[in-house]
């Protein structure tokens, strides 16, 4: 009995020291030993092979055209005027001005039915569908059973992911987080000085690097010369809580968020000891002025780290960017936009908070193949003369959507849970009525009858 315990403890010590030497130390110094790259290469080859086999198997069925990531039905992109104009062109009556025609309603019908089959908003809150299967059961939508070999590889994948990678990743995450708490608390004892700041930065970056390895994250940063500077606000599209780890691997940021209890609360309190972050009590968050003032004070102090904010306010599935809330754009600092795009082939990073809580989400992350993403730093933007916060927010949003290859939507991410405001419907009605009665008659029609 004792012999078995001894052997077990020796094995455990060996394993732990391997983890420290091979993963933690390189993480501290920002050195990569190349394991992850090798792993990704092998993975890509395997998935390509699996795809070819599946395609061969599917050749008996009629081939469907390859899809765009943005929909299952074909949509006309024209505006209301264009589309209705086209409908009316085939109408025998000549239209000198605006007027109603019976066929107008087809446009609204088609749009309505399109929305019933697939609407632009709901599809952004579910995981993106893959073109070809990546050997994870969770992404298996319409892919059929193909062959014994694919099944074997899949089974092997399950074993590797759950029995080898998962324990390793959990260990790394645990080490990373405890190091964060311990390290920042220790640094917090030092008097304020440049030394303290550098040490705090080092501690933060090391932990985030360890956490990133805990997810087998491969991140490529582009345009590093545009990296956010102190006194600025870094703005990015939001897909999951992991975004923070992704961004903080390459720079130090001041986080903004609500004060939590439990483990999160412990981490938050210790982080704030070593360098200033902006944590709000729940009551403070309701008062927009308090929030704005605290953020303004933070960026006014040029020694403090740039603030990291996700203006969408909620997690979107990384195929589009939704409306940016104007609050962060009213503060007046320089905005550093950042676009984050995950490669869904290796693991779906989107957090569907309606379906999964934080713990199950993290487990799913740790049992995916890997997290592969690209981060683009965009050139800094400032509020132009005569531009208001909403326009500025939209400008930044378009820039991010463009760079990341995402669809630029003006829908509010808050629609995940809320109803559409009546003002949107009125807008549609106004647009159509101006086509029927002409916009010059509009002044007469305004006002309750």
């Amino acid at each position, binding site marked *: 009995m004792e012999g078995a315990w001894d052997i077990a403890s020796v094995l455990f010590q060996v394993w732990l020291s391997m983890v420290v030497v091979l993963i933690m130390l390189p993480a501290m110094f920002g050195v990569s030993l190349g394991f992850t790259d090798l792993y990704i290469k092998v993975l890509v080859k395997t998935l390509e092979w699996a795809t070819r086999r599946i395609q061969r198997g599917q050749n008996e069925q009629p081939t469907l055209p390859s899809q765009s990531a943005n929909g299952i039905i074909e949509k006309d992109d024209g505006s209301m005027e264009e589309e209705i104009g086209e409908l009316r062109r085939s109408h025998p009556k000549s239209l000198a001005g605006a007027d109603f025609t019976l066929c107008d309603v*087809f446009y609204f019908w*088609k749009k309505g039915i399109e929305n019933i089959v697939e609407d632009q908003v709901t599809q952004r809150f579910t995981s993106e569908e893959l073109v070809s299967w990546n050997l994870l059961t969770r992404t*298996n939508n319409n892919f*059929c059973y193909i062959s014994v070999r694919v099944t074997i590889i899949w089974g092997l994948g399950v074993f590797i992911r759950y029995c080898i990678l998962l324990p390793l990743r959990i260990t790394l995450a645990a080490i990373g987080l405890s190091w964060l708490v311990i390290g920042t608390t220790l640094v917090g004892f030092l008097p304020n000085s440049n030394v303290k700041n550098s040490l705090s930065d080092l501690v933060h970056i090391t932990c985030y690097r360890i956490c990133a390895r805990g997810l087998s994250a491969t991140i490529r940063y582009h345009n590093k010369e545009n990296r956010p500077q102190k006194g600025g606000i870094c703005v990015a599209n939001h897909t999951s809580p992991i975004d923070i780890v992704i961004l903080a691997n390459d720079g130090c940021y001041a986080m903004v968020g609500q004060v939590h209890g439990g483990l999160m609360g412990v981490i938050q309190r210790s982080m704030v000891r070593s360098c200033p972050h902006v944590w709000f009590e729940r009551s403070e968050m309701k008062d927009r002025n308090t929030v704005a003032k605290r953020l303004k004070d933070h960026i006014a102090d040029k020694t403090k780290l740039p603030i990291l904010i996700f203006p969408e306010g909620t997690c979107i599935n990384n195929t589009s960017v939704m409306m940016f809330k104007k609050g962060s754009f009213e503060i007046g600092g320089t905005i550093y936009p950042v676009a984050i795009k995950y490669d869904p082939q290796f693991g779906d990073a989107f957090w569907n908070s309606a379906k999964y809580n934080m713990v199950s989400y993290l487990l799913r992350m740790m049992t995916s193949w890997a997290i592969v993403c690209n981060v683009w730093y965009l050139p800094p933007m400032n509020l132009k003369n005569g531009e208001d916060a909403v326009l500025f927010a939209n400008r930044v949003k378009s820039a991010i959507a463009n760079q990341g290859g995402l669809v630029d939507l003006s829908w509010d991410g808050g629609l995940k849970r809320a109803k559409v405001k009546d003002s949107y419907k009125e807008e549609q*009605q106004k647009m*159509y009525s101006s086509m029927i009665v002409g916009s010059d008659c509009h002044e007469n029609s305004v006002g309750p009858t």
Partner: protein
Amino acid sequence: MGSTNSTLIKIPNVEELMQETGFSTAHIIRLHDRFKELDKERRGYLCPRDFEAIKGLAINPIGDRIIGAFFSPGRETVDFYTFVRILAHFRPADNSRPKESSSPEPINSRTNKLKFVFQLYDLDKDGKISRIDLLKVLRGMLEMQVTEEQLDSIVDRTIQEADLDGDDAISFEEFRKSLEKVNIDHKMSIRFLR
């Protein structure tokens, strides 16, 4: 891994549905997934509230009429079959299918598409679109944005134009005639990309 076949098995009478509506296996599965997505409380049927939750539909001027089309008079629920049958009206025409004289006209034929839209205009279901019907539909679409006078003149003009037999209402034949040049198949069809 065998999910296609297992999903189909879960939908009873799916063969009949495919035959009647002409949707392919893949499309029925997509519609079933969508039905489940809309049916948030997993009751197996949809009610008007589930449709109203669709954002794009909520801002559509005829959103209420579209939702109403799914529910037969007096019913508050729609099951998957009715859902698919209504949507079948919007399937593009299959020109490749051989026309058998014995089989009934497909749901998505031009005539049936027109009949479907006609039914929505014809609120009192008397087979004609009367002045009152048209007024109600337009008022629903435009609410506060136009005055009574403007609405009246629009309705007058529309009926005058399409009414060929002078009975101050638009029958189905007159409706069909006034739209004969419109490419119904293109404008009233939803095409699946996959």
